């Protein structure tokens, strides 16, 4: 008897219309759980409101479904792209961190330098060639000086002959 009074009170209508207060919503939900008659009445009202909406429906223009499907697929494609990009960028970051960890910075304290043994022969060759060039330079310098002196002597001899 009590439940019929509640059903007739208009509480269900405000709930189904979406204008019920939070308190009213809680009351409807608990009554729905407690009383099968209330649950049936509420479901019947929900169905009737749907039928009422059907009577006021307007057929959408052709191509509307295609637009919606296209937009949904676009959104999903974008979400997929974001999801795949996120792990890649995370992976790159980890790689950089790993590289930094692999190389340890060491500050050398010794003044000595270690060189491969093969360089020994190169240094010897450079040294010998250096000596050869130096000896040749001295030799040609002396030769040149001697030639200059001879030219001078010849010039003097020529002048004396002319007089």
């Amino acid at each position: 008897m009590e439940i019929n009074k509640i059903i007739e009170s208009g509480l269900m209508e405000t709930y189904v219309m979406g204008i019920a207060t939070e308190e009213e919503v809680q009351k409807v939900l608990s009554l729905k759980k407690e009383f099968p008659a209330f649950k049936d009445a509420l479901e019947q009202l929900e169905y009737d409101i749907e039928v009422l909406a059907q009577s006021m429906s307007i057929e959408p223009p052709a191509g509307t479904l295609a637009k919606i499907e296209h937009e949904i697929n676009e959104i999903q494609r974008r979400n997929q792209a974001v999801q795949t990009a996120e792990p890649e960028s995370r992976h790159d970051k980890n790689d950089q961190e790993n590289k930094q960890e692999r190389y340890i910075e060491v500050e050398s304290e010794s003044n000595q330098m270690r060189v491969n043994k093969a360089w020994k022969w190169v240094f010897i060759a450079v040294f010998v060639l250096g000596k050869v060039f130096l000896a040749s330079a001295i030799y040609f310098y002396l030769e040149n000086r001697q030639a200059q002196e001879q030219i001078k002597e010849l010039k003097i001899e020529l002048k004396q002959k002319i007089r």
Partner: protein
Amino acid sequence: MFKAVLNIPSAEPKDIRWFYDQYAPMLLGYINGIVQDHQKSEDQLVSILTSFVKDVVLQEKSRLNIWLELRQYAQSKLTLFTAKDHHLKPNQFVNQGKLDLLDDLQKQIFCAVYYHGKSIPYLAAKMDSDENEIRNQLKLSIDKMRRASGN
């Protein structure tokens, strides 16, 4: 071809089609009752159905009766149109359906609640009436239309 190449799972086309066939005409009728402009209503229909399918249908988050949830969702997306002070006149552009069965007061109350989500206290204050009277008139208007449908 692109879907196969990119290996992207698309939304279930059958589900969307079923959902669209079932609810798009009802939703367009409802949006048109709020927006009162055919072109704007059609644009809103695409936008609202897309986001509802993405947010609720594909996520399987629906808890209520789906039409009630969709209607409330649409109302929340159309606050630009519903937030303005309601002038309490029945909408001219609405596909009247069973609204013709209601008297002027019932029509005013029903449209203010159904399309604009106005609360009982708001309407009582606006119409200088008692809250119980508004609630009663709302129930009477719904009962009238239900009876006309044979329920």
